[in-house]
């Protein structure tokens, strides 16, 4: 498309972001400040992730965008269209075909491989934000590895609810050093942070970039007597019958009726195409596609 540089941002800006990305990968979990730009979408719509994606995209890339696991929600559709227009890259909804995946709040169910990059949209990069309001102090705590306060939050969870009730944005320690907020992914996804793919985190409003390089050790914080637990609804997907995926609860009428479906729409669709069927899923016809 003429009138725009490739992937919207100018080359100098992309270079500054790449420099920040390199530093972030060199120091896993460390929040690197960067000069975040105004993007043609509001804060909270993934401006950080969009800038990181723009800096990473090449014309040969195939892009996938998901929002809460779904390819067809407003946020995902608008960002996908944005890059289709300004970068002219191929787009896909298939996890296995994508080389760059921008995500909000989920990690795809299918394991990623070494040729893929996962870009997260992050609202609040600082895991200690609501415990220690001073940014100067939290930076010092990161620098000196003083992370006792993070456990105070988990202590409070147990004291109030009898178990660690933090269900999303569950704090992790990366490579035994930095405590990191994995963006608001459900804690179900935390074990998947140890991945073969490069994982990049961009926070636009907060102007921070951080990263987890491939095969990096990522440990969810916990207590010895209250170990970290994955959490999912004890149901099977109503559409594809999967019993090991993260499920969304969907209200289907005003009489208390509800169903649970995979939040990863692509994964669910592929399973259905392969012949799996849940209690509420109509059988897929061979000629439907």
């Amino acid at each position, binding site marked *: 498309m003429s009138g725009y540089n490739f992937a919207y941002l100018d080359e100098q800006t992309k270079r500054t972001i790449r420099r920040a990305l390199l530093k972030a990968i060199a120091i896993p979990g460390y929040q690197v400040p960067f000069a975040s730009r105004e993007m043609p979408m509001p804060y909270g719509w993934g401006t950080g992730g969009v800038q990181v994606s723009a800096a990473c995209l090449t014309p040969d890339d195939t892009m996938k965008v998901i929002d809460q696991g779904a390819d067809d929600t407003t946020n995902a559709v608008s960002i996908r269209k944005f890059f289709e227009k300004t970068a002219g890259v191929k787009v896909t909804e298939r996890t296995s075909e994508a080389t760059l995946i921008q995500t909000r709040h989920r990690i795809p169910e299918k394991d990623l491989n070494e040729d893929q990059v996962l870009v997260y949209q992050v609202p609040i990069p600082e895991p200690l934000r609501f*415990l220690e309001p001073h940014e100067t102090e939290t930076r010092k705590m990161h620098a000196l590895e*003083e992370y006792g306060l993070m456990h*105070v939050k988990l*202590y*409070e969870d147990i*004291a109030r609810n009898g178990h660690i009730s933090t269900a999303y944005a569950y704090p992790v320690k990366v490579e035994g050093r930095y405590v990191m907020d994995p963006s608001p992914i459900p804690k179900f996804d935390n074990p998947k942070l140890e991945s073969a793919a490069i994982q990049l985190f961009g926070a636009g409003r907060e102007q921070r970039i951080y990263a987890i390089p491939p095969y990096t050790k990522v440990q969810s914080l916990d*207590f010895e007597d209250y170990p970290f637990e994955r959490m999912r609804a004890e149901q099977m997907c109503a559409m594809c019958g999967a019993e090991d995926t993260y499920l969304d609860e969907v209200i289907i009428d005003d009489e208390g009726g509800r169903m649970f479906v995979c939040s990863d729409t692509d994964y669910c669709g592929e399973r259905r195409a392969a012949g799996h069927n849940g209690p509420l899923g109509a059988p897929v016809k061979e000629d439907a596609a």
Partner: protein
Amino acid sequence: MTPLLSVREVSRYYGNRIGCAGVSFDLYPGEVMGIVGESGSGKSTLLNCLAGHLAPDTGEVLFDTRVDGLKDTLTMSEPERRMLGRTDWAFVHQNPRDGLRMSVSAGGNVGERLMAVGARHYGSIRSQAVDWLGRVEIDEDRVDDRPSAFSGGMQQRLQIARNLVTGPRLVFMDEPTGGLDVSVQARLLDLLRGLVRQLGLSAIIVTHDLAVVRLLADRLMVMKSGHVVEAGLTDQVLDDPQHAYTQLLVSSVLQV
């Protein structure tokens, strides 16, 4: 006997104004030192310099560390100093809101220092927190309440529990009884005196209340305009004040 804390010629200036100047003293293990003086006499400046919150312009503050013996806390690295601040040292603020996390439960407040030094077992953190709340006379069933639901006296006692849970050797107190009414003050002083004797703590207590030092302190320093004008055993200084300012101070105490 090596002193626990050895202060040498500590001075702190605010531009041309004197905060405190040329203060030297030794504090021995198990000793409680009182610092008295009027507002603006440099008591709090001195205390903050000793506790590492303020950097003095000149002087040395030597602390008897567990590993290396006497060591200047001003030249040691920041991580080391902060480590001291949450293990061997404790700081009780005048206003409990400065020393507590108001949005975290009482148990969490006490447990924070334990978690800061690596405790990762919920059950043992909690039982230590309950134990310490008991020692400062807070009921066990208040362990999950936030400090904002506590009275001023309870908040101050909670702050003391939070500070003492890691077994510090030196406690800095900045007007620990300020802002409390007299009956609550008496109870807190009683508690403090018990804890100090029982645990063999060393403490430096800054106050303008002579009754507090009479009750708690072994030794006393009187400050005026940033300088120490008189020092000695508490009873000796209060019963037989030598400096004119100390005489004024002692005679200004209201007799009921």
